């Protein structure tokens, strides 16, 4: 499939990139690894006037350890995250998520920034122009109907990124820069929860880095996902868990995040209070996984039935919690 026409921008510094974004705003599409954007271009889901390649911005590279945090540049490839011994050791859920992103050649190309900012997906949206011509125009394409949920008043497209749930489990933040200013927000705040426009990023902002705070007590983490082909698919249900233990051997904190369960990752809020002060026993992990089930959204808009995916959220949430318990280690 051919790409549509566009003009190409290739800034060599971050200020240059920010000034291009300021000038072109909604007319520009940022590209880094290309694994997501090139497909969206080919399907004509986007038709930008300009494509701006940020892959040559050296300031967006590197995984750097600081006293209180780890900073990952937005251009760091999924492969680099997967292969980082620091992340494998201390941030297992993040390394596990990277290991399960697509297949190795796509992990070589894709970046963490691009993975976080991948758009929501739906069987009635991620199709070629020819197929879409035969369908009603849905919310995601600017229409007023939902083809997945008959009579649906909103877009039920699904966020299928692997990295974001794992990063959110660690309460990671992201740095958004624009000409003259920068802001740091929790990654969770990057999501609007709306399928039509999933991100709160402004049209002249560039995601430049991810900040992951260090843990100061015994903790463990894990990421688990359901997919049809173990080799390369997007998650159809996923969960990231972070568990922390106090000196008394009881839970001091618990954080469970589910993915592929709606237009944004979801923090299962009740898990933290439910686990606090409890011994790390199976019944409590199961109860926490039940809370994930209640929060998940099972819609028939991906390759497996919605009710099955919803049930699998519970299964994979429990597995992620079990994995986090197994990964338990001392604070950094």
């Amino acid at each position, binding site marked *: *499939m051919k790409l549509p026409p*566009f003009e190409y921008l290739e800034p060599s510094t971050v200020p240059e990139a920010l000034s291009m974004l300021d000038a072109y705003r909604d007319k520009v599409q940022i590209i880094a690894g290309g694994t997501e954007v*090139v497909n969206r271009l080919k399907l004509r889901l986007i038709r930008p006037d300009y494509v701006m390649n940020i892959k040559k911005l050296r300031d967006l590279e590197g995984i750097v350890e600081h006293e209180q945090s780890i900073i990952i540049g937005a251009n760091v490839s999924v492969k680099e995250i997967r292969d980082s011994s620091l992340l494998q050791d201390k941030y297992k859920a993040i390394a596990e998520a990277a290991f399960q992103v697509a297949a190795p050649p796509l992990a070589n190309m894709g970046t963490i920034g691009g993975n976080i900012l991948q758009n929501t997906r739906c069987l009635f949206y991620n199709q070629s122009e020819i197929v879409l011509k035969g369908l009603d125009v849905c919310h995601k394409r600017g229409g007023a109907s939902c083809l997945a949920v008959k009579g649906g008043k909103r877009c039920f497209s699904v966020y299928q990124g692997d990295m974001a749930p794992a990063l959110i489990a660690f309460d990671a933040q992201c740095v958004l820069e624009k000409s003259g200013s920068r802001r740091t927000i929790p990654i969770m705040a990057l999501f609007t929860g709306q399928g039509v426009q999933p991100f709160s990023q402004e049209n002249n902002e560039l995601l430049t880095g991810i900040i992951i705070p260090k843990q100061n007590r015994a903790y463990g983490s894990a990421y688990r996902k359901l997919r049809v082909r173990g080799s390369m698919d997007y998650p159809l249900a996923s969960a990231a868990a972070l568990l922390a233990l106090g000196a008394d051997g009881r839970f001091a904190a618990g954080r469970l995040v589910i993915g592929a369960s709606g237009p944004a990752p979801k923090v299962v809020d009740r898990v933290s209070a439910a686990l606090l002060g409890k011994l790390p026993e199976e019944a409590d992990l199961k109860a926490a996984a039940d809370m994930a089930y209640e929060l998940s959204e099972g819609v028939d808009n991906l390759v497996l039935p919605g009710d099955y995916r919803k049930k699998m959220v519970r299964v994979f949430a429990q597995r992620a919690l079990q994995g986090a318990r197994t990964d338990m280690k001392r604070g950094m």
Partner: protein
Amino acid sequence: MKEMKRYSLTLTVNNETHEVVAPPNRTLLEVLREDLHLTGTKEGCGEGACGSCTVLVDGQPVRSCLTLAVAMEGRKITTIEGLAQGGRLHPIQAAFVEHHAIQCGFCSPGMILTAYALLNENPNPGEAEIRRAISGNVCRCTGYAKIVKAVQSLAGEGR
């Protein structure tokens, strides 16, 4: 939209320098096949799922169907045509022939380049590592067993 600007690109493919003039919406796959006539690189799905368009960029397997040619200046590109030297098959190609790891042959360029990158990074991979490395390359003929055997036959050989 006005007519797209065309870029004069200097691409290094299989250790040779090529001058190509292309608009920015040309993929590396299109430039390799249509401009440089290096048709060993195949187009399968065109959306990054099948792996038949795999080439090496700076030694790493990537999908050429998802790669903009204009972004490839200064990078070292290797296609299947770059492996055989002096009319002799590369040992990985020879192993694929030897182990009957080729049937229709459509996935073979991508498979062989992926195996080449794996063996460069890890000269002695186990079966699980081989299967993981080629997990992004779809083969509809062989069931993968003979491909894995061909790569395994080279483990520990150091080339």
